[in-house]
């Protein structure tokens, strides 16, 4: 049986006596724990930001782009031709079982005018499915009606940035804006999505019916075509199947022989971003692993100091043994001492880690995420380090011969 409160008291006293030494020993653990917490906070912040962006772009997305073409042996780059059209988009939607919905895109830059304000932005000709595909919601107003797409109605939905720049605080609904001098009626405003992964402002956007875009805005070079097709798969598991189905269907529709190359490209956006998220997670773990090495070094510092302490206090150990302390009592006393060092160090380290993470996010503007998990993990690890590195010195102390220990000067 060991008297824990009394043992803790004894340990605290001996740590207080050597304040400087205890503080320096703790410093190793403090730095280690703080580093682990900061690294995990930065890493998790980064991967969190990426997954936020994934959901901002829309989940389970595939984009179909026109491929390259070869004219007289010269290969032109991707998008040099426009060989996708609305019929392709509709066919993908109706014939590919793994696809939930599609939206054609015909986009281009344009100058927008409202009253005495004007603004340059990107105008996307698309259809009513786009909002759903991008997991977007409307702040005010409504989505396109199917009929407006068919009839090439001059209506538009604005992104938040466009609204801010043209309307300020005024209600834009039912107002007329001019896109490339063509008047459009505003029917809706999208919710704000913020920056994309590449740093683009996703709210700097205008949606118009794809038919209107073809007829009135960007249809001159390749009439009847679209720039790309956005596809939403039914689920993340179905992404690969959807990709294969789209390829097969488009090869058929574009009459591409078995030996010929695709004249389009299918890109799995979600997969790309998930890979980015994955790699940032791996990076976070790697950083934490490196930081935990310093925790280990701190532990070795504890062992070093505990060994010195045991030697210094040989006589005390002898006295305690003479009046009846068992090996276990001596061992516990020194392990508790090491544990107290590492736990206090761990606690300060946690606070310092939180502080430095907050400072990083404040001054460097990094996204950080301090999780309870990382605090529990690093604090627990510091305790383990204390027990592990305290054990050998404590064991050595407990094996002392009381007679020799009493004689020790």
């Amino acid at each position, binding site marked *: *049986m060991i*008297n824990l409160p*009394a*043992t803790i008291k004894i340990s605290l*006293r*001996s740590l207080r*006596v050597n304040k400087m030494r205890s503080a320096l020993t703790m410093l190793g653990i403090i730095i280690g724990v703080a580093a682990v917490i900061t690294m995990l906070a930065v890493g998790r912040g980064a991967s969190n930001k990426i997954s936020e962006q994934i959901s901002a772009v829309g989940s389970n997305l595939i984009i179909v782009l026109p491929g390259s073409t070869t004219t007289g042996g010269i290969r032109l780059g991707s998008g040099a031709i426009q060989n996708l059209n609305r019929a392709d988009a509709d066919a993908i939607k109706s014939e590919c079982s793994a696809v939930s919905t599609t939206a054609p895109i015909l986009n281009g830059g344009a100058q927008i005018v409202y009253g005495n304000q004007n603004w340059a932005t990107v105008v996307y000709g698309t259809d009513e499915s786009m909002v759903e595909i991008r997991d977007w919601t409307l702040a005010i107003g409504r989505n396109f009606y199917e009929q407006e797409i068919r009839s090439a109605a001059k209506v538009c939905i604005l992104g938040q940035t466009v609204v801010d720049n043209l309307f300020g605080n005024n209600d834009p609904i039912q107002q007329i804006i001019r896109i490339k001098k063509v008047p459009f009626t505003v029917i809706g405003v999208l919710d704000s999505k913020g920056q994309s992964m590449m740093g683009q402002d996703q709210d700097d956007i205008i949606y118009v019916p794809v038919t209107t875009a073809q007829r009135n805005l960007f249809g001159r070079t390749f009439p009847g075509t679209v720039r790309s097709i956005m596809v939403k798969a039914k689920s993340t598991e179905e992404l690969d199947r959807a990709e294969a189905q789209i390829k097969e269907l488009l090869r058929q529709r574009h009459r591409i022989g078995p030996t010929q190359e695709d004249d389009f490209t299918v890109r799995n956006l979600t997969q790309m971003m998930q890979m980015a998220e994955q790699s940032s997670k791996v990076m976070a773990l790697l950083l934490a692993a490196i930081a935990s090495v310093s925790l280990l070094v701190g532990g070795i510092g504890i062992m070093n100091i505990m060994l010195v302490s045991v030697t210094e206090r040989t*006589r*005390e150990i*002898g*006295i*305690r*043994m*003479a*009046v*009846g*302390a*068992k*090996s*276990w*009592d001596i061992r516990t006393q020194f392990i508790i001492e090491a544990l107290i060092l590492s736990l206090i160090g761990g606690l300060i380290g946690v606070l310092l880690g939180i502080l430095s993470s907050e400072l990083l996010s404040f001054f460097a503007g990094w996204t950080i995420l301090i999780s309870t998990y990382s605090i529990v993990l690093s604090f627990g690890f510091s305790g383990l380090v204390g027990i592990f590195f305290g054990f050998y010195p404590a064991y050595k102390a407990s094996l002392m011969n*009381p*007679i020799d220990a*009493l004689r020790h000067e």
Partner: protein
Amino acid sequence: MALIETDQLEKKYEVGDSIVHALNKVSLQISAGEFVAVMGPSGSGKSTFMNVIGCLDEPTAGRYLLDGIDVSQMDRDALAEIRNEKIGFVFQGFNLLSRTTALENVEVPLLYSKNIPKDRSHKAREALKLLGLEERQQHHPNQLSGGQQQRVAIARALVNNAPLILADEPTGNLDTKTSVEIMELFVRLNEEKKITIVLVTHEPDISAYSKRIIRFLDGQIISDQENRP
């Protein structure tokens, strides 16, 4: 029944190639309530004898019964328990924990008892009071005189109600006047509390306080006689 009973006790050390017989077939009995002085020149084996009967050292051969318990074959933790319950130590160099108050020093043996008493500080205070140190409870050893420090050590030896006090040159570091005070204290404890005291000394003045004097030479008892103070 004898409190201490040794039978053919031997302790051998190997020093290089030769073997030193620190104790050579020592057989003796000390009854409860005795006041024994152990004398002898250095190297005579008296310190080894004290270490063995104090359960700090194990004999190489022979038997040792303490309070009827055979302790000669016990492991170190069992010996620690015996020391805690049966023996109070008083050393020449006091051996108090520095940076620890008198009261806490006296409490230390209680922390290692089988059943840790709840009223530890009360017991420790009582022991200090018995030795006239109630005013000095919160003093640290370096704030106390030699005599006071030795009295704290005696209080520590008494606190667990051990039937035996082993004192190794308890007055070795004290002046004559303080030595007399300490020795009178031992006599009082022996007579009033019936505590068995075994004391190592090489000073005849000190051994004069005892009732029995055992002399060691070359690891053997050469004389064992009553002493009438």
